[in-house]
């Protein structure tokens, strides 16, 4: 019985989670219940250690700053104007609004790094616009869900910050590693949309503008709406990748820069600033509480012998590197149906890290695959968090059927990216290798 504690921890955790108890609190309560077996009345001193450890983590202090940067872009009119400017450029292409949506998500994903938030913010702008031009409902749903999922892989992503601090990798290297796969994914999405809408005109009809916009005006709007956020994000990323600034510093400069841009455009009102701060503390508390819960859970899991249990199980299988990678990815993929990405990273990274070390797998290559898999899992029906978020903002005539069908092409495209990373590890490891030299 006692040696099965690690297994029971997972079972009980999932029971609590499915009963609808907040994930962070489910993790903490499970740790309390099972921690008694090992620590007895020293339990709470032990668990307080997990809280103090999380609260004292310097790396994690970039999280509120990245969130603040995204929140300011969202709460001020910068995001909406960006979307309108993108439509000017892409609108007349087949599937043009879908293209604008993906580009918007890519830029925004870079800014905020919080997955569901991107989907909801961009979705609320993009869905009515696409509905107006009678876009296919499946394409609408797929575009918003797939775009929303980009937050995981497009740097600077908070997933990367948490992953790096758990696996003790360099954040800069991990950002660099996810850059090429992230760009590949956006490119695959866009090529698919143009090709599909070109051959099936009613899928995403081109927008007929009532009046022609002059090129000079187009450029002016672009300079005002697209360039500032793009410059902001590339300077944040650039200073990070070039090693000029630590993630925390880059994020603080990014947040201040976003506020400055909004101020210059006279869009930073007091209520919108307070709103951005409110969003920031809520999301930070949400993420950090899961980090606390995850830290408690994995520490109790480890002292109960969970690590040995898994190592023994894997060793008894006697398998190669690729099979091991495949099994671990399958576990993450299944976990992604029900758990949010933070919990997945917090629970599985500490368990997997020794395994991949022993097997001699490149931790950065593994991390990139890990993130692509979380992202794909986020999108894959029937239990796809992306679809649950979409449902909360979707027009009433969009059914689950539309959504399930709509996301499938994008799931396949993401699996293609995953396959490319598996077959050509250079896609993930090339840029980080430049940083070390």
């Amino acid at each position, binding site marked *: 019985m006692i040696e099965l504690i690690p297994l029971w921890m997972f079972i009980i955790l999932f029971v609590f*989670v*499915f*009963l*609808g*108890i*907040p*994930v*962070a*609190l489910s993790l*903490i*309560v499970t740790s*309390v*219940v099972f921690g008694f077996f090992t620590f007895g009345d020293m339990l*709470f*001193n032990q*668990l*307080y250690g997990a*809280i*103090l450890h*999380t*609260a*004292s*983590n*310097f790396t*994690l*202090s970039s*999280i*509120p*700053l990245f969130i*603040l940067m995204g929140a300011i872009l969202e709460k001020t009119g910068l995001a909406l104007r960006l979307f309108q400017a993108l439509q000017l450029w892409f609108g007349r292409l087949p599937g043009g609004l879908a293209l604008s949506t993906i580009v918007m998500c890519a830029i925004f994903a870079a800014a905020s790094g*919080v*997955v*569901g*938030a991107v989907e*909801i913010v961009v979705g609320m702008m993009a869905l009515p616009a696409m509905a107006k031009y009678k876009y296919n409902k499946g394409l609408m749903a797929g575009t918003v869900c797939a775009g929303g999922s980009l937050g995981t892989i497009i740097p600077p992503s908070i997933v990367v910050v948490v992953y790096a601090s758990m696996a003790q990798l360099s954040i800069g290297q991990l950002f660099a590693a996810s850059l090429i796969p992230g760009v590949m994914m956006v490119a695959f999405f866009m090529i698919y949309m143009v090709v599909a809408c070109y051959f099936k005109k009613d899928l995403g009809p081109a927008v007929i503008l009532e009046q022609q916009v002059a090129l000079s005006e187009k450029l002016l709007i672009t300079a005002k709406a697209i360039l500032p956020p793009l410059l902001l994000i590339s300077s944040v990323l650039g200073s990070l990748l070039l090693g000029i*600034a630590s993630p*925390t*510093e880059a994020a*603080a*400069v990014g*947040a*201040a820069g976003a506020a400055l841009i909004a101020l210059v455009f006279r869009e930073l009102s007091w209520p919108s600033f*307070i709103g951005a*701060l*409110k*969003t*920031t*503390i*809520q*999301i*930070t*508390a*949400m*993420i*950090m509480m899961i980090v606390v819960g995850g830290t408690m859970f994995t520490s109790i899991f480890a002292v109960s012998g969970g690590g040995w249990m898994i190592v023994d199980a894997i060793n008894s299988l006697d398998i190669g590197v690729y099979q091991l990678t495949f099994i671990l990815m399958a576990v993450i993929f299944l976990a992604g149906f*029900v*758990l*949010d990405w933070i919990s997945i990273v917090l629970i599985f990274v500490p368990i997997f890290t020794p395994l991949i070390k022993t097997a001699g797998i490149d931790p950065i290559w593994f991390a990139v695959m890990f993130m692509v898999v979380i992202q794909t899992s986020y999108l894959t029906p029937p239990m796809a968090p992306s679809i*649950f*978020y979409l449902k909360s903002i979707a027009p009433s005539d969009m059914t689950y059927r539309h959504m399930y069908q709509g996301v499938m092409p994008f799931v396949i495209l993401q699996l293609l990216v995953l396959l490319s990373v598996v077959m050509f590890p250079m896609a993930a490891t090339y840029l980080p290798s430049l940083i070390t030299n």
Partner: protein
Amino acid sequence: MNALFLRLDGVSDLLAKISMAMVVMLVASILYEVVSRYAFGAPTLWSFDISYMLNGALFLLASGYSLKVEAHVRIDFLSSRLSLRHQQLINLFFYFFLIGPSFFFLSYVAGEKAISAWITAEVESVSPWSPLVWPFYGAIAIGLMAFTLQVYIDGIRYLQGDKTPGKSVTKDDMNHD
């Protein structure tokens, strides 16, 4: 008595305001460090400690407020099929008998640590700046205590049946994650 008790969630609101101010302070302190390091070649002694302490304090101080406005992620695709009353009773049970006591004891330990750090004037041991740690430990303790309080306030709301899991009772509602 209940109505009076429920108004105690003003504590969470107040701490949320302090937490929001800390976000601004966090940005300001790092900008100060960046400017003084790159423009004047004089890095500060305190920036590193201040940054992590502010982050650690601000998320715990905001945790009660986040619970109140339901910002913590719930996976509710199964539980939302239960009747509202059943959902409320499940949450009531967890809040009163599992989550509440857990955080009560965590707050107790946190309070002990903070008080002993204050009495012994304990300083941060690994930092060259060596700041006193009791303000940081104190903020953690206050955050945990306020969270415990909010757990019981929300628990009473579930008991009375005027709270739906996942929905904020105030207008500050937002979509999380």
